[in-house]
């Protein structure tokens, strides 16, 4: 049996709309993953602390507030400081096209906008965690 993939779905920042985060959490659950859901209005410190205690493989950040260029680098920095540089981070929400290259350059695995089909991120996560062969 392949090891369980553990994913933290977090909503850093101040927007109060978590429909997208819940849809992603549910889709990952249906793909057999264990999803830790932490709720609204988390600080980057709270996200990194939860990622550490839960020893997750993946962190998904849902951001619709426009504050992604502040929040994402801070989360990445804290994960590294905790020794979790091997954790894969993806970002979902409302992210302008022109910010995507900068986020990827920070080490973000992928950025998913509205309308992304769940198979896309499920396959990406499996590839990232288990390696290319396991994704099929």
């Amino acid at each position, binding site marked *: 049996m392949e090891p369980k993939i553990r994913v933290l779905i977090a909503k850093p920042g101040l927007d109060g709309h978590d429909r997208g985060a819940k849809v992603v959490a549910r889709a990952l*659950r249906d793909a057999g993953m*264990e999803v830790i859901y932490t709720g609204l209005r988390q600080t980057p410190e709270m996200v990194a602390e939860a990622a550490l*205690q*839960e020893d997750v493989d993946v962190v998904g950040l849902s951001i619709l507030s426009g504050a992604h260029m502040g929040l994402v680098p801070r989360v990445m920095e804290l994960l590294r400081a905790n020794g979790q540089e091997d954790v894969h981070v993806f970002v979902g929400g409302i992210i302008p096209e022109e910010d995507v290259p900068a986020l990827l350059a920070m080490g973000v695995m992928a950025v998913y906008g509205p309308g992304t089909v769940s198979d896309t991120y499920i396959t990406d996560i499996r590839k990232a965690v288990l390696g290319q062969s396991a994704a099929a």
Partner: protein
Amino acid sequence: MDINAIITAVKAGERLALARLLTQVENDSFEGRAVLDALFSHAGRAHLVGVTGSPGTGKSSLVNQLAKSFRHPADGQPEATVAIVAVDPSSPFTGGAILGDRVRMRDLSGDPGIFIRSMASRGALGGLARSTAAVTQVLDAAGFDIILIETVGAGQSEVDIARLAHTTVVVEAPGMGDDIQAIKAGILEVADILVINKADQPGVEATERALKTNLELAHPEKMEFCSAFGLSLGTFEPKAMWLPPVLRTIAPEGSGVGAVAAAIRQHGNYLRETGEWRLREAARLDSELYHLLQATLMFHWQETIAQGEFEVVFQQLLARQISPQQAVTRLLEGMVTPWQQHG
């Protein structure tokens, strides 16, 4: 990684080492087992407190408030470090899970004296995961004073928690059924402390009355608990018997939570003073040994069974050519058991 290095790191309070070890233990890996063997003698200090009850009664909110109360006691008690193990169900179809207990525990973030770990039940049915006991053993050895174990939202018979925990808190909410529910066997019988949460909701008096009436009738089973494990009543003073208190709380505002924390401490003292702490340890290790033995025997059987044999027997069963009992006999025929070797 070197096992001694892991143990040193965990005992020194390195949180990443602890988190990673918990994953190994949860996955029952070779490394996880080796560390558990080495850690066993370091554990046995922590007060294990189970929190159980139906879904939606407010277990996570209560655990959140209890942890705060143990960290910052208002009544002059020394502050304690707290680990929380929160179990949520795995899907029986996909094996996936949503672990959402942290949503109610955001107040606890940033406190180095707290460690929260979510677990999926991974197919186990008793309200805990198979490896929850092992996970608590690691947190115990890591030096946490109190370990709060929140079960899957439990109905009537998910009573595994009572075997694992020293103190079991059962959380009820008003309006969850009539007084017949209160006298049914199962979860209420294992309560050391009963909490009626959401006490600002209508029906709280009726719930309290039903629970108290039921408690007044309960007594003799404690005697049998002792004899079932061959332990003498000599160390156990029947006069000092613990009567589970029924306490009201409104968890989101923390109302009544201090009394619950105090009752948990009192129960811990009671267990130590009466010798029942040892009885419960015995009951816990007995059940742990039994389960481990069961799993190991199952594993050995799977090793010995010939390729395809199970499928052949199963097809005969499906065609109703043999009964389930006959199928078991057939499947165990090839297994070399110790008593066969000697007989």
